C-alpha cells in the first residue's frame, strides 16, 4: 500500500468515526468537538486530493469560524453552568426511516454511477485559476455574496450594540 492510501483510510475512518460520535453523543459539547475532528478529517482528505486551498478554507471557515460560533452559542445559552448540555433523541422512528431511506438512495447512486477513474496530476497553480474564475466568470455572484455578508454584519452590530447598552449600565449608587 502506498503511504497516501494508508493516510486516506486513516482520515476516512477518523472522519466517519468522529461523525458517529457527534451523532450519538449525549453531551452537546462533546458533539461539537467531535464535529471538529470530522471537519479536520475532511480537510485532510482535501489535501490528499491536492485541493490545498479548499482544505485551508475548510479549516479557517468551518473549524476556526463556524465551530467556534457553535461552541459559543452552546456555552452562552446554557446559563454558564458547565455540565448541563445533555441532549435527548426525539422522533426516533421517523428519523430512522428517513435516514435509512437516504442511505439506501446514496448507496444506490454510488453503485449505479459509472465512475471515471483518472490519475490526478499535482497542479502547481491552484489559486491562480480560482482567482481568475472568481474575478472573471463569477464576479457578480461573488460581489452579491459580499454585499449580503456586509448587510448581515451591519445588522449583527446594530443588534449587539442595542443589547449591550441595555445590560451594561453602570447603576448609580445611593
Amino acid at each position, binding site marked *: 500500500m502506498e*503511504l497516501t492510501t494508508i493516510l486516506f483510510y486513516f482520515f476516512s475512518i477518523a472522519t466517519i468515526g468522529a461523525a458517529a460520535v457527534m451523532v450519538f453523543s449525549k453531551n452537546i459539547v462533546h458533539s461539537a*468537538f467531535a464535529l471538529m475532528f470530522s471537519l479536520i478529517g475532511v480537510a485532510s482528505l482535501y489535501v490528499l486530493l491536492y485541493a490545498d486551498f479548499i482544505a485551508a478554507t475548510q479549516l479557517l471557515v468551518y473549524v476556526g469560524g463556524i465551530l467556534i460560533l457553535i461552541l459559543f452559542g452552546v456555552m452562552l445559552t446554557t446559563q454558564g453552568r*458547565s455540565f448541563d448540555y445533555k441532549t435527548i433523541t426525539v422522533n426516533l422512528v421517523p428519523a430512522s426511516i428517513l435516514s435509512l431511506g437516504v442511505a439506501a438512495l446514496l448507496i444506490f447512486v454510488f453503485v449505479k454511477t459509472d465512475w471515471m477513474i483518472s490519475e490526478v496530476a499535482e497542479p502547481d497553480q491552484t489559486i491562480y485559476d480560482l482567482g481568475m474564475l472568481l474575478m472573471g466568470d463569477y464576479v457578480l455572484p461573488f460581489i452579491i455574496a459580499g454585499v449580503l455578508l456586509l448587510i448581515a454584519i451591519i445588522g449583527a452590530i446594530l443588534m449587539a450594540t442595542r443589547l449591550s447598552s441595555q445590560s451594561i449600565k453602570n447603576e448609580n449608587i445611593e
Partner: protein
Amino acid sequence: MINFAANTTYTLPILVHAAVPLTIIVVYALVAIWGERKVAGFIQDRLGPMHVGRWHGWAQSIADLLKLLQKEDIVPKDASRFLFKFAPFMMFAASYAAFAVIPFSSGYIGSNINIGVFYLLAVTSLLTLSIIMAAWASNNKWSLLGGMRSAAQMVSYEVPTIATVLTVIVVAGSLNLMTITEMQAGNDILGFLPNWLIFQNPFLIVAFIIFFISILAEAHRVPFDLPESESELVAGYQTEYSGIRWAMFMLAEYADMLLLSLLGAVLFFGGWNSPFGDFMSGPFWEFFWFMLKGLLLVFVMMWIRWTLPRYRVDQLMHICWGILIPLSFINLVLVALWEVIF
C-alpha cells in the same frame, strides 16, 4: 500489507522534515523561557535566575522542564477526561503544524506550498478551539471565563491579522512564503536599504504596526493577555492543568509567539535575506538572519510584557473592532492605490 521498505523513500524525508522545526521549537522554547526571565530581571532591576548551571543560570529552563515532567498529572474529578487530556497536545500540534510552511532558509522549508500564508492562518485557528476545549473540559468557572475571553479575542484579532497579511500579499502578489521572501532580496531602496517590504511601501509600516498589535493579542501577550490574566481569572484556561500538560501549553504559547514573529519577519523584514546584500549570505547565515529577526520581535514582545499593564476585555474588543479593523482595511486600499500609482 504495508510495505515499509518500499516506503522509506517517502517516509524518511518526511520524518526528517518534521523533526527539524520540532528541534528548533524546543531549543527556542528553552532559550526563550530563560531569556524571558533574564529580560524581566533586567527590566525590573534584578538578576533573574543565577544558580542552575553556574553561568547566569543558563540551565534554569532545563531544570524547570525536568521538574514539570516529574509532577503529578492531576485531572479534576468532574472534568471531561478525554478532552482535558487531549487539549494541550492539540494546541501544540496546531502551532507546530504551522511551522511546515515557514522558510527557514533558502535551502530549507518544510513544505513549499502555494498557499503558505493562508495555510498558516488556517492552522493557527485550531489554537482557539484547543483553548476552548481546555477551558470547557476543566469544568471550572474561571477556566470557562478565560476560555470564552480567549476565543472571542483570538477570533476578533484574526480579522486585522488577516487584513494586514492581505496588504502584504497585494504588494507581493503571492501566497507562497518562499516566493515572498525571494522577492525581497537585494539592497536597492535609496541605494543602501534592503528590498524589504516594509521599506517598499510607506503604508506597509502602518500595516506592520497593526500586524504587530494583532499578533500580540493572538499570542496572548501583555497588554492583551486576558485569557490567562493571573490577577483576575487565576490562570484562565490553564487553571486546572499541572505537570507535563501545563508544560505543553507553555510550549505551544512560546511556539505561537515565535511562529507569529517569524511570519512578521517574512512578511515585512525580508525573511532569511541578509540586511547587507550578499555579505554574510548562504544557507546557514540565512537561517541565522531569519531567526535573529524573529527573536528580535519576540524580544520586543517580552519588553512590552514587562512594561505595560493589561487592558480590560471590552477595551480590548474596542481596540480590535473600533480601531484596528477599520484602519487595516483603509490601509489595504491605500497600499493597493500606492501599488497602482507607482
